[in-house]
């Protein structure tokens, strides 16, 4: 039997979530982000082009140039914003919780202890599948506001994370441990 200890806790000595080294997302994820924006942007450009082609005199030349400059600036701004916000995103797994940080204007850090996770899901969208990416979502009983989704992971990593969290939620019994570890692909619940 271990010696029972009950030392007072020094709050300043507790592990600090803000000092954890975060892991960045896969760089390919920028493509996914840009693709999502590009759909909207394509619509805007096609709309203006059609207007320019069929009804050129709707605006004066100066305004047409202003629109062109505006669209280009918007495009550049969007790309820059996406790049910077991508570098702000990061995740980490500690022994007892998952951390995800994101946001350029408002920096948000979400932390979910594993013993509060209800279930884990692995999502793969159309573009993500082409690039071999996936995202992992942790669900809690606290409603959609407290769910945590980590996007832009390599599929293999995502599956690894999912299995890790599943094991944390339902720790396998010791006699079954070897069995579980030996099975390469555990059941994966995949969504699109």
């Amino acid at each position, binding site marked *: 039997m271990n010696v029972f200890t009950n030392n007072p*806790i020094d*709050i*300043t000595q*507790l*592990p*600090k*979530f*803000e000092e954890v080294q975060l892991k960045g997302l896969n760089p390919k994820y920028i493509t996914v982000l840009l693709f999502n924006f590009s759909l909207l942007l394509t619509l805007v450009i096609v709309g203006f082009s059609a207007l320019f082609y069929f009804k050129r005199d709707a605006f004066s030349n100066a305004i047409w140039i202003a629109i062109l400059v505006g669209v280009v600036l918007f495009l550049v701004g969007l790309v820059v914003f996406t790049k910077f916000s991508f570098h702000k995103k990061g995740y980490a797994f500690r022994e*007892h*919780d998952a951390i995800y940080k994101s*946001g*350029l*204007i*408002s*920096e*948000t*850090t*979400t*932390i*979910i*202890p594993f*013993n*509060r996770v209800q279930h884990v899901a692995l999502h793969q969208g159309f573009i993500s599948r082409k690039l071999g990416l996936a995202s992992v979502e942790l669900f*809690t*009983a*606290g*409603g*959609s*506001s*407290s*769910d*945590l989704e980590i996007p832009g992971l390599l599929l293999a990593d995502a599956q690894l994370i999912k299995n890790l969290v599943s094991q944390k939620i339902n720790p396998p019994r010791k006699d079954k441990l070897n069995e579980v570890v030996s099975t390469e692909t555990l059941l994966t619940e995949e969504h699109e």
Partner: protein
Amino acid sequence: MNKSVDFSQPQRQSLPGILVMFANSLQKTVRALWPMLLIWLVKFDTLNKLVFFGSVAGVVVLIGVISYLQYLFFTFHIDEENGEFVIQKGVLNKTRITIQLHKIQQVNINQSLIQRLVGVHKLEIDTAGSDKKEASISAISHELATILKERLINHSQLETIENTENIREEVIPTSLIKIGLPSLIKIGFTSNYIKSFALIFLFFTTILENLQQLNSEVIDEDKVTNYLDTLPIITSFLVIVGFFIGLVLVVNLVRTILKYFDFTIQKSKQAIILSYGLLSTKNTLLNPNKVQKIKITQNYFQKKLDVITIGIHQASSDVEKVKEKDQIEVPGCNENERDAILKLLLGQLPQKGTMYLPNWRKLAVNTFFFLLVPIAISLFLNHKTEFVTWTEWFIYAAFFCVFAGVMLWFSFKNYKLFVSEDFIIKQNGAWDIDTTIIEPYKIQAIETQQLFWQKATNIGSVTLSTAGGTVSFTTGNYTEIKQLVNYWLYEVETWEKNWM
């Protein structure tokens, strides 16, 4: 009162329940056939009386027979082997509803007007799953209902304890708190002004619309206006304002009393039972483990009158649309009763612990958005349209400034966060002061937030999510917040206590 009822054998509902079913079926039939009935009534004289009364009697007898058959085929029992509660019903279409006992979350006993006349109760079972699977027994005697409820609830919680047989304590619920009429009257007079005002507003607009459509002369508008014209402006203004204030108060009072009449809290072995209502009695079972968030509300008047409202938020099975019964309100208890309720729910009185205050910039930002921006907008609009003269604008603006300023100052002054080992208490509000209490081990997720311009001043916010709602503290010292987050994470991750 160890009246052992064997629930393992299929049971029928109580016999007077036939009357309830009869009344329900009759109501349905009348609702379905009322156009025909109306025609018959109009042509009453020309009808063959024999055929008329014969058919009415026939229908009534038929409904009676159907009700009896429904009663006969409706059985319920507890399947001990599989740990299920089973309801079987249906005369021609047989239905069998089975509910896993450990999935039962709540058992409610209610009583509608008909059930009250006959002297039976309705028992509803709420499960963690979807709404569709919920089962109910519409006529059961109160005694049986209480025993069954205890059984079902105990099964869902005490499964692991083997010696359930031995713990046959007194099951007579001990009455704890009873909220009397005076407290309800006090609450009725001092809260929910805005809700009641909205109701009255809605009521009046519908009535006015209908009156205009009918073009009736029930109320002669000119007469009212003429009468008001004869009075000085101040007096007529006061008359109208007084009338509305009186109406709001009366509506408030009536609503509160109807809803919460005879509010009783009882404690039984496992759970807390709340019952209330004047016309239809509601009976709700409250499980202290399920309580996630407690909100205590009191304003200045209520403080003087010593009445407090307590809102209890339970973990809901469906977070997207929080069910009403998962948010229970205890109206009008006094300080001692509040402490008793808190002790009952939390096991101890919450200590406030270390206090954290927001940065003064919170006041500055709020003043900017809720005082300066509205003033600027009205200034701009008045400049464009000259809606009121500038002296008038100045008077209104001054009134608004004083009012908004006082509200903002108090809401800043009251904004506090208290953290102790076992509790997190947040206080906020300008007039109605809310005190929200949560226990750290019930936290599901923590989110910290910092806007990029807040980095220089080291300000940030934190949001704690529980299964019963969120609590957030904004514009605080970010270093302190991060320290708190680390502490709460430590508590959540090391405490063995189950959050539900």
